């Protein structure tokens, strides 16, 4: 009978008084704005990278692998020399790699929700989309990192953008806008899909054809008519054309406008859809 009573005093020293004091000083600040809350969630994603740096593997190794593989595999056959091919293929591989990486947005969210911490977030008095906007902004950091890896390696291999730093920056900027918008598809699916494997499978089924059946590797004119028709309207093709134009300094205003419109449409459709399924997620 003596054991419980000693336990109790010990516990008390840990808790009661200190907890009471802590409760008493708990002031009630104004609820944060949407942007501030989003930045806080961005910070959370950055902390997760700090604690689990392995998750950057895909944004560093994928780009290196893709660029080396495709440049040396196709360069000689398709453009006569690897350095000539690189000028055309690098913007394409940039788009392909970063578009592929967007799929991790959905996977991360899916895992995050399954762990249960979103219950806490959803019970807070904050602008609800900030829970998802924050991670998407953090993905922007990952996309930028992947782009940097490709560009640096590209420069080493002989990529020479005619439009200089400004053109490259504009191209990467456009890519980030498009990928941020594309990611909303994966947030919707990340919430709806029950298992990570199913989500991964579905993402692959969308992304592989979308990125390969485009003008990334070959000029569309060489394709059979029906395939050429798809390639021409593929948003990835438009984005690649716009990026090549921006980086090498030819006019691509039309393509840029269409890419921005597609991006806006993606957010307009999948943003609210994501929030709808997020609210209903049990």
């Amino acid at each position, binding site marked *: *009978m003596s054991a*419980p009573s000693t*336990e*109790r005093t*010990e*516990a*008390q020293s*840990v*808790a*009661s*008084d*200190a*907890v*009471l*004091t*802590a*409760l*008493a*000083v*708990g*002031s*009630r*600040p*104004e*609820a*944060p704005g949407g942007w*501030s*809350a989003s930045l*806080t969630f961005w*910070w*959370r994603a950055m*902390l*997760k990278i700090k*604690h*689990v740096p392995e998750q950057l593997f895909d944004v560093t190794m994928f780009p290196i692998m893709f660029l080396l593989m495709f440049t040396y595999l196709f360069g000689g056959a398709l453009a006569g020399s690897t350095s000539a091919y690189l000028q055309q293929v690098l913007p394409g591989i940039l788009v392909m790699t970063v578009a592929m990486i967007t799929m991790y947005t959905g996977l991360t969210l899916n895992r995050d929700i399954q*762990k*249960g*911490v979103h*219950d*806490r*977030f*959803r*019970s*807070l*008095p*904050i602008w609800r989309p900030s829970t998802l906007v924050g991670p998407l902004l953090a993905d922007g950091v990952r996309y930028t990192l992947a782009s940097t890896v490709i560009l640096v390696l590209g420069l080493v291999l002989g990529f020479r953008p005619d439009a200089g730093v400004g053109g490259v920056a504009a191209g990467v900027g456009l890519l980030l806008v498009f990928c941020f918008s594309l990611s909303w598809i994966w947030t919707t699916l990340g919430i709806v899909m029950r298992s990570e494997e199913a989500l991964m499978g579905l993402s692959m089924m969308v992304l592989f054809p979308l990125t390969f059946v485009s003008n990334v590797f070959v000029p569309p004119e060489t394709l059979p008519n029906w395939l050429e028709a798809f390639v021409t309207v593929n948003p990835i093709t438009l984005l690649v054309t716009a990026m090549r134009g921006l980086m090498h300094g030819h006019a691509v205003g039309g393509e840029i406008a269409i890419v921005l419109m597609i991006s806006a449409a993606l957010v307009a459709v999948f943003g609210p859809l994501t929030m709808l399924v997020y609210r209903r997620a*049990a």
Partner: protein
Amino acid sequence: MNGSAHPAVYVDGLVKHFGSTRAVDGLQIEVAPGALYGVLGPNGAGKTTALRMLATLLRPDAGTARVLGHDVVTEPKLIRRRVSMTGQFASVDEDLSGRENLVLLGRLWGHRWRDAATRADGLLEAFGLTDAAGRQVKTYSGGMRRRIDIAASILVTPDLIFLDEPTTGLDPRSRNQVWEIVRALVSGGTTVLLTTQYLDEADQLADRIAVIDHGRVIAEGSSSQLKASVGVGVLHVRLHDPEQRLRAEELLARTLDASIQVDGDPAALSARVTDTARVAYALSELTDAGVEVANFSLGQPSLDEVFLTLTGRPAADQRAEDGDGLDPSGATSQEVTA
């Protein structure tokens, strides 16, 4: 804390189904401001679903639920500003350190970075987690996990806090610490609604208890009212000689004026006790009659026994862990070997 006339929680005819299962089925609860209210029930009774609806995480299918006077469906934002929920599972980010979690939530409550950090350090200190502040939460023990969970819920002092099974799976010492924290919350003026599978816990902490089963309240009242209906405890007796069980059964039935249960163990008997004073008398009667008692214990009725009394059948969906020795009723039973 809130001097208003309305109850902290008012639930009437609340219903939620998942497919064809009615997880919550006409629930009715009323919690007074400042009270410590316990919802007692086995797994699958609908406790968590009910709490999630009250915390505005889940939309009810039917019925009324008002929290601090606000409707959960039409005014969720007003509720979220004044209520905290500590879920049964991860309610903090396991990949982040304890301190990072608290700073993160402090920011989300609207604190500046500096204030959020100060608040985090204060809470870590109060909950005895300063040493573990920089470690990832996934490395914490069960008791530390619970403490950081609760600390995360009181970054901004809530008027009402929901605790979903705050001590399930904890060792007795950690459980006592959580109990102390819960008592401190109530004495600080916060209304607490907690769910539990342990009658002992509800009895130790709660002013009022609702026993729920299949999403419905099957008994409600103060701890003493509840115990009056199920008995103060259960006497378990084990004899040296199984041959004497029949004789012991007669004697106990007479002296305790209760029906005696015999189970698989041929030397064991148990009886629900309404008056502890009679236990000593009954035991001495056994000795006088030459029935040798190997050991006996007087324990509080388990959830199973409460259910048996209230519903006439054992609690449904009991998980295996209920019998793995963590049941706090074991800690309060006095076991004596004769």
